């Protein structure tokens, strides 16, 4: 049976929902960060599925740019996480609800 477009879209929606639920229920800031990465990948899957469906390469170019943005986000986000841990000695986001110490 040939895989349909809707299967990929359903998988993408499931992955995105898992990411959203993880961002909401997790309190470790690194785990929240990884859930954001999962949401970006869900969107990438949607892009590639539509690109393959419409025979258009534009979607894959968008995936390339999204990956670059994710790499930049990883670099800056992990720098922020290290700075937060150095100042507060914790990774719990509930403990660091104030911007100023």
């Amino acid at each position, binding site marked *: 049976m040939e895989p349909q477009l809707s299967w990929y879209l359903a998988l993408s929606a499931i992955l995105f929902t898992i990411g959203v639920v993880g961002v909401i229920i997790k309190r*470790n800031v690194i785990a929240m960060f*990884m859930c954001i*990465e999962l949401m970006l*990948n869900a969107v990438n899957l949607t892009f590639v599925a539509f690109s393959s469906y419409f025979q258009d390469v534009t979607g894959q170019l968008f995936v390339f740019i999204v990956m670059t943005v994710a790499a930049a986000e990883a670099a800056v986000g992990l720098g922020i996480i290290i700075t937060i841990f150095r100042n507060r000695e914790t990774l719990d986001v509930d403990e660091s609800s104030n911007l100023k110490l």
Partner: protein
Amino acid sequence: MVVQRNPLYSAISLVGVFVSLAALYVTLSAPFIAAVQVIIYAGAIMVLVIFVIMLLNVEDEELRPRRLRFLVPTAIVLAMVLIAEVAFILFTVQVTPSTPASSALSVGLTSSIGIGLFTDYLLPFEITSVLLLMAIVGAMSLARRGDLPPNARVVPGAQVLARDVLSPVAGEDLTAVETESTDEAAQLLGLEPRNRSGKGE
């Protein structure tokens, strides 16, 4: 992935998710994106995340959130409403007849992506490079320790003493006096230099 308590297990699971997505990209006739997915996501980004997890070394398990217990019935009701909406959409909205995707051999190849990236989408590509440069500068400025002056040297064994510690005459003078070794600092303080390994006692 989200049910793991240890963030390291979450990271390993996320690597599995990324590799599975790369396999899906291969079936969608996008081999370049699949390779980039494995190299960048499962390689670079997850190595960075695992490095930070092990650097910070947070071993305490995350406790189950107790304060959300009264919200569970509300969540169940809202989930039932959402399921009802999805069922309504699935059973009443008319489905567009889908045409099966023909086998694409020239769309996902590296050359077509490169041609598209350097002709029609050149400006987003250049903006992406500027974004990466900004990310490098931002990460460096974030991860740098800011509490030491830029010309401070940290030499093992050297001591930095305030001047009022050395002599009571100096009063409140807090000028730093650098010494090259611990023994020299002890001599300035009027103490006997500490003998190494008990020699001379």
